[in-house]
């Protein structure tokens, strides 16, 4: 096993929010561990509000964890020197969901793409211009487009510009937070292909966040499934999408409707409301919606247990005494 380039241990984020007139703790992410090896893609799936974006922002050091730590090449941010921090900023680049808000409408595309380069010392104007042209072509746009403004581009093209910007500083990791969910089907495929090409070409590591299992399957090597701020299952993409171990993952699979009028009815269709993260259920967070819920589920939170597919899942059903 190689050393992870980016890792998180015990990561947690608590927001103080005002609810019913009182300040309350909202646990957006809780005790989360993950590690990313160079050149691999880690998929993170979960429904809205489960903490994916919060996690992403913590990994990008845009937000400070309430507990736990993020390490880049083995060092936490506070341990890094100024140069190392700058290296981190260059090495880790995000692409966000909404290409309309990712590009400053008052800046020319060339300037937008060059922004991550602006903090690198000793880079001449010509170098920057060359690099901008290079990455624009890498995402299927033309070098001349650098002179135009974002509003002259369609959503799909904008997302390409956002990707070009992300790869401009030759990063080692791309943090992709739902990069295609705002795109049309035909554009979505184009972007996914570009990302995949870049991965292969530059050996980029990726964190790919999505609520759609099928896209994660297409993009990622490994998958982490989140529910109410916690990891409830992890394993290889293939395993999770075909032989899930957790009832929640199963429900997600069932809900991802296949484009086939004659598809069979799923065995474990999803049910119930998503609990409020302000008031999370005791025990297993999923027990309120789980058709297989047992008494113990409401009381005791299941640990991560080995699942049949080779990964881990947090479900009491996988406990050795019950799996028989």
């Amino acid at each position, binding site marked *: 096993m190689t050393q992870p380039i980016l890792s998180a241990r015990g990561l947690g984020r608590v927001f103080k929010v005002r609810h019913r007139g009182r300040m309350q703790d909202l646990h957006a992410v809780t005790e989360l561990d993950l590690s990313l090896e160079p050149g691999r893609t880690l998929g993170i799936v979960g429904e809205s509000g489960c903490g994916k974006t919060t996690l992403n*922002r913590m990994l990008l*050091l*845009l937000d400070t964890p309430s507990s736990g730590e993020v390490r880049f090449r083995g060092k936490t941010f506070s341990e890094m020197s100024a140069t190392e921090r700058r290296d981190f900023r260059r090495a880790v680049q995000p692409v*966000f969901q909404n290409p309309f808000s*990712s590009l*400053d*409408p008052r800046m020319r595309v060339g300037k937008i793409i060059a*922004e991550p380069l602006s*903090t690198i010392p000793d880079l001449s104007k010509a170098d920057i211009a060359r690099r901008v042209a290079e990455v624009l072509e890498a995402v299927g746009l033309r070098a001349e487009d650098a002179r135009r403004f974002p509003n002259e581009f369609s959503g799909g093209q904008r997302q390409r510009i956002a990707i070009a910007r992300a790869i401009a*500083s030759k990063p080692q990791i791309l943090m992709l937070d739902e990069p295609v969910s705002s795109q049309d089907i035909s554009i979505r495929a184009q972007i996914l292909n570009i990302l995949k090409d870049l991965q292969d070409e530059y050996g980029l590591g990726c964190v790919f966040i999505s609520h759609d299992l099928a896209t994660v399957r297409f993009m990622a090597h490994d998958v982490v499934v989140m529910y109410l701020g916690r990891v409830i299952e992890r394993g290889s993409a293939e395993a999770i999408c075909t032989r899930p171990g957790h009832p929640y993952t199963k429900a997600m699979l069932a809900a991802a409707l296949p484009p086939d009028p004659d598809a069979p009815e799923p065995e474990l269709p999803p049910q119930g409301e998503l609990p409020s993260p302000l008031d999370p259920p005791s025990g297993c967070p999923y027990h309120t919606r789980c058709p297989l819920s047992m008494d113990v589920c409401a009381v005791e939170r299941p640990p991560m247990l080995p699942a049949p597919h080779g990964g881990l899942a947090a479900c009491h059903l996988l406990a050795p005494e019950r799996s028989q």
Partner: protein
Amino acid sequence: MTDPIQTNAMGTPSRLQGKFAAIAGLWGQFGWTVRLAMVLLAIFVLVALLGPLISPHDPLAGSLRARLDPPAWQEGGSWTHPLGTDRLGRDILSRLIAGARISLTVCALVIAIAGAMGTAVGTLAGYFGGWTDRIFMRLVDLALSFPVILLALLLGAISGPSFTNIIIVISLVLWSQYARMARGETLKIRNEDYVDLARTSGLSDFRIIGRHILPNIAPSLIVIATLQVGVVIVLEASLSFLGVGVPPPAPSWGSMVADGRSYITSAWWLCMIPGLAILLTVMSVNIVGDALADKINPALRGRNI
């Protein structure tokens, strides 16, 4: 046929033409009222700028013998003083022209001061949030709603009406609107992904404010500034009425109306003509401001006070 040398000197012709076309295109999008208002404003600015060049008389020189002459078209009027003369026999047209300059200066200075102050406070409050925000915004609340006219009166009473006072006082009244607007817009833009992206690129907070926030909130602030031109003119007039406006003998439109008010039946032109000038200008400014708001940020429409 374009002369190549000239083209080089002027920069790329296509870009210039592009800009021109863009302006012409914008022009084309406005209705006739807006265009008329724009023309009026352009005249106003031009008159203000040319001021002394086109003024038929010295706006400060008068003769008591020729006081309260009616406008030329009235009986007893003459074309020496096309709009008549005031209480000291000074030419009203010349004073109107000089007044345009004063009003424009007051507006420009107030908007610059109030705008800078409000924008700084609002942007910092919006961007940094937390305590900065709370303290700044309480201040804004206070300033926004406190009857600053009383402060204005006090200030005026203390040091007498002066140009500086007017500008300080009106700025005190108006800065808070910019602050509120700048804060609101900054809050919106702070949540835009490109600001986060700038941070992941290692830009410092102040560089982000300079590069991303300010350019993006500028259009909204410009709309507010436009709409405030009217507010400034009207406010200055009210202060003049209370005796703390632009000090005499300098003619501001507001003080001309205020001084002429007792003559409304005997020499109506004294307060009607500058009053009309205020009305037309402020209306034009508001029309153009609204039109700009429609184009730039429809949410601002009708929100100024």
